[in-house]
């Protein structure tokens, strides 16, 4: 089993508590069962799966219940790429996601990084940056519904890399992507639940 550093263990413990506490309230689940942690800690894959679940839940809620809801209500406030300089604008779901990743980047205690990647990036910063990332995106395309796990070495540091399919969860996602001026000639016409790219979690080993 790969070992996690102290910060990753703390993050994993916090995540476990957040995940398991609600279970403790369910009938048939005693508090001692819910709060207990697996002996020997968790694997980097379990850690990555956990943080991915949290970040995707947050973004899905934002895309569905904020952005799409504003659209449906024909509200004056809209999600817009240039929101910082435009009145009545809020960040796009992808931007909200990236800003969260940047805040994690600012936190030296976080112990991991995450990012969006795509074979058809509307933002050049989201294209695959390593061979493993390219392999992962190809794998997600060829194996719908599956995650990709691997390891790579960058700058004398070994990393566990998990890449999860990034699906179009709300109409706001695919309609905006399909109509985006930055789309290339080979850009697919996305629809509900299509894999538009990957969510990458990288954990130093």
């Amino acid at each position, binding site marked *: 089993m790969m070992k996690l550093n102290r910060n990753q263990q703390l993050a994993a413990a916090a995540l476990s508590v957040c995940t398991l506490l609600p279970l403790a309230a369910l009938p048939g689940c005693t508090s001692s069962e819910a709060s207990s942690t697996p002996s020997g800690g968790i694997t980097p894959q379990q850690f990555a799966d956990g943080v991915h679940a949290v970040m995707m839940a947050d973004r899905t809620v934002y895309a569905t219940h904020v952005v799409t809801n504003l659209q449906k209500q024909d509200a004056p406030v809209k999600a817009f*790429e*240039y929101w*910082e*300089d435009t009145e009545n604008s809020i960040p796009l779901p992808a931007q909200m996601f990236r800003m969260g990743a*940047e805040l994690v*980047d*600012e936190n030296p205690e976080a112990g991991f*990084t995450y*990012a969006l990647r795509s074979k058809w990036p509307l933002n*050049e910063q989201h294209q695959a*940056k*390593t061979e493993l*990332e390219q392999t992962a995106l190809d794998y997600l395309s060829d194996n719908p519904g599956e995650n990709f796990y691997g390891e790579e070495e*960058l*700058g*004398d*540091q070994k*990393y566990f890399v998990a890449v999860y399919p990034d699906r179009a969860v709300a109409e706001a996602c695919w309609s905006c992507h399909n*109509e985006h*001026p*930055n789309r290339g000639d080979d850009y697919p016409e996305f629809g509900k639940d299509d894999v538009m790219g990957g969510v990458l979690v*990288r954990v*130093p080993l």
Partner: protein
Amino acid sequence: MSIQIRSIWNAFRQSPHAPKWLTWAAINLSIAVYFGFGLVAPASISSTAWLPGETTHGHYQIELDCNACHDPGRSADGPSGSDVMQDACIRCHGEQLDLAKDTHPAKKFRDPTNAERLAVLDAQNCLSCHQEHVPEQTLTMGLTMPADYCWHCHQEVADSRPSHRDMAYDSCATAGCHNYHDNRALYEKYLDDHHGQPDHLELASLPRRSTAASLSGVFRPDRPLGIDEADHPPAEAVDQRVLDDWATTAHALAGVNCTHCHGGKDDSQWSETVAMESCQRCHADQVASFQTGKHGMRLAVGMPAMTPDQARLPMHAGQAHAKLDCNACHPGHRFDTQFAAAEACLQCHADDHSLAYRDSSHATLWQDELAGSGAVGSGVSCATCHLPRIDGETGIWVNHDQNASLRPNETMARQVCTHCHGLEYSLSALADPRSITSCFGDAPTERIESVQMAHQWFEQRRAKREARLQKP
């Protein structure tokens, strides 16, 4: 022991070389004292001996306070031989970079996939591009890196931006195109949004200051005070002219009495002079920003105020020893903001740009406003451009860091010029050295292309999208 020392001393005195040895010892001792004092003494001329080379124009004002940059004890992370100066950079410039929406913050490079790039160019360390005390390799904006640094990461830019093909590698950061840190006036959507503007806007006017709303601290404007209500201690002889001046100011109008600035009503609490900290109680943003510019940065590190004789720009000799504190531009007791906006600057500054101001069309507009023939906000003083009016959370206030809109000067385009001019005209003027020297008395001779290029880029994108939508 004392007998031994005495015998050595006697032998030394009888030596024919004693005077030479004494001289040698005295010289060495003097050198040691000179350098030793410079090392431990507070910021002063004695520290000059330790300067390893000429300091940049942005830091020379505080160069004798070595610890402003080199004190490891001030690092938030504790003493560190490797990053102490990086920490000092962030202390003074971190907030400025945040406000400028820094397009290359250190956090951007924390993604591990940047490891190879960082090995070539460590973009997380300020000193990679901004070394100090190396005048022979220092370019504008304190850049000590060859000007083609963008190429290391953006060499394939022409793949996504065909318009950039065949452009010189060192031309990216020339005026009107890109900056490494501050691109608020240069990013493509902003350029496109301002495409097609006329050189001179029909509605050319500065935003009005909301001084009262932007005041800080606990003091809030009170009822107006009359001259008879001045609360200076009775024993203090106050010139009637001082009282008359005060009674005409916004201070009296807002209920700011003598003791608010000069201390208590008791003689022992009264002070003839007013410290900057007193001004700061109500004008916190103004004083804080004053201390981040070249005028006030010495005060920020606890050094005596800047004086024009220390400036590297040409100054009028008569003002050589004028102290640059709040009163330098806002002399009591009138605190005349109109005087502070132009005449205060011109009483010291004697460079070509400043000397050309009085003959410029900007100055004519300012004189018209002062005379009442021009609308309020239509005049252009020195302060109009160099002390921009910032739309803050509590209202529009005047940024007193006169260098903030010059780091680099495209910052001025967005904060100032575009109140009256089109963006393309503004960027072109700021990119034209001749136009700058003449204080913008001459229109720019060449037009920068970035606004047009950005517009064409968006037009192409729009055309492609429409063509795609029309396909069956």
